[in-house]
């Protein structure tokens, strides 16, 4: 019963926010130039969703996100596992990784432009760079979360290296890995967006920045809704997987 109540309250709150978004500009409580009513934004969203240039921009951005993710996650995971498993490598690189992790990555953006230009490679390189460190740290945490007793049990029952990897390492690390995947995607997507909005010819980030600069608030907000929906969709998909593991997570 409490669960249902909670859902009702949340829905009511969401409805109230959307209603205010519609009503405040409509009745002149806020400047509709700065905050256009929700219905106008939704109409703009429906409109931009059928535009060919928007499709192309979405395609470019999606490709950048996917490629950067596909590079950053395996590379970061490999480096993370190495730094956790190999004491020598870990001792050398871990402190350095922690220092670099703390730096806001966006200050390196001008350097990426000088090296890679403002096209596809630069977006991928910058997003990979923004994502890599969180993946390394999560992967190394995931390896360290494998309990020594669990490895010992497997060895005492004669498990081979492959069996230990598959039946002990993988399930032990899975909850942390899924969480890492989710958080890396946030970093990755942010990286691509920032790079596109900062300097680019293509991509949805560029379009959103353009709409902002030309004061097209309905389109700008429609773009925001679109990006937000895509990000939330990925996040929730991975989170539902995480929830399935959380019953045994300790």
């Amino acid at each position: 019963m409490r669960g249902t109540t909670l859902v009702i309250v949340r829905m009511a709150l969401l409805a109230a926010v959307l209603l205010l978004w519609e009503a405040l500009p409509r009745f002149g409580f806020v400047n509709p130039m700065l905050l256009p009513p929700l219905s106008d934004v939704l109409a703009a969203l429906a409109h931009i969703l059928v535009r060919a240039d928007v499709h192309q921009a979405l395609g470019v951005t999606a490709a950048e996100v996917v490629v950067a993710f596909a590079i950053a996650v395996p590379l970061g995971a490999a480096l993370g596992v190495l730094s956790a498993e190999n004491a020598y490598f870990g001792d050398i690189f871990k402190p350095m990784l922690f220092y670099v992790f703390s730096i806001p990555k966006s200050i390196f953006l001008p350097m990426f432009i000088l090296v890679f230009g403002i096209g596809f490679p630069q977006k991928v390189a910058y997003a990979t760079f923004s994502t890599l460190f969180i993946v390394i740290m999560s992967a190394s945490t995931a390896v360290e979360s494998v309990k020594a007793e669990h490895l010992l049990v497997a060895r005492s029952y004669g498990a081979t290296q492959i069996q230990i990897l598959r039946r002990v390492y993988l399930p032990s690390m899975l909850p942390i890995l899924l969480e890492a995947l989710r958080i890396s995607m946030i970093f990755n997507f942010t990286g691509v967006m920032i790079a596109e909005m900062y300097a680019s010819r293509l991509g949805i980030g560029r379009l959103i920045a353009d709409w902002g600069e030309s004061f097209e608030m309905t389109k700008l907000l429609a773009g925001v809704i679109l990006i937000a929906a895509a990000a939330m969709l990925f996040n929730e998909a991975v989170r539902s997987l995480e929830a399935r593991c959380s019953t045994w997570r300790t």
Partner: protein
Amino acid sequence: MQHVANLTGKRAGAAKAAVEVRGLSHVYAGRDGAVPALENIELKVPAGRFIVIVGPSGCGKTSLLMMLAGLRAPSAGTILCDGRPISQPDPTRVGVVFQEASLYPWLTAVENVEFPLVLKHAPRAERRERAGAMLNLVGLDGFGSRYPHELSGGMKQRVSIARGLVQDPPVLLMDEPFAALDEQTRMTMGHELLSIWSQTSKTVVFITHSLTEAVYLADEVVVMSARPGRILDRITVDLPRPRTYQMMATDVFGALRERIWLQIRTTP
């Protein structure tokens, strides 16, 4: 009457050594050079016997158990199990029961028990049947589909025991299996273990810190010294079986406990 018959039966079958340790020594590389951990251990455990090893912390009793399980190689000496040397883990000869946190939290009770069989690629139906029988033996019938976090500490250790027995090894090694349990559960588990042992006639090597537990469970208590671990004494516990809680209040029990305590205490 019944215990006497049981007792003599055990002794009669005790001619063959299930576990034999000859001239075992172990030295490990510490920060300040070589540290002697175990020195000249000689031990013969007849088949079907319940042996308990006690000793101060850091006396190398867990190291010794790891070596008996084939998980660690000694610097010198040999270990024979069932008459053959053991140099790597062999779960068909030796089952191991570890301390509390050793169950896999992502597997259910029955999946934990069948884990050793999964490693051996046993057919699913056979695994399930065998694991079910073991859960039944340890009194966990009907709990097979529970995850470890849904079980009490005592139940988790029952699952561990079932897992140790699932391949029917002649020897069962137990490394402080009840150390994390509260006193009452610990006593109950000890009692249950004896009943399982009497049904399966395994050779058990059991490590503990608790002297009461040692005397209550053992046919023989092996007392070890502080590092480097040596065998100080081997005390035969000639209390009749099955053991009862009342025996703990007897003078014989107290005297045995006292004898062990004095040796451990006087060792620096």
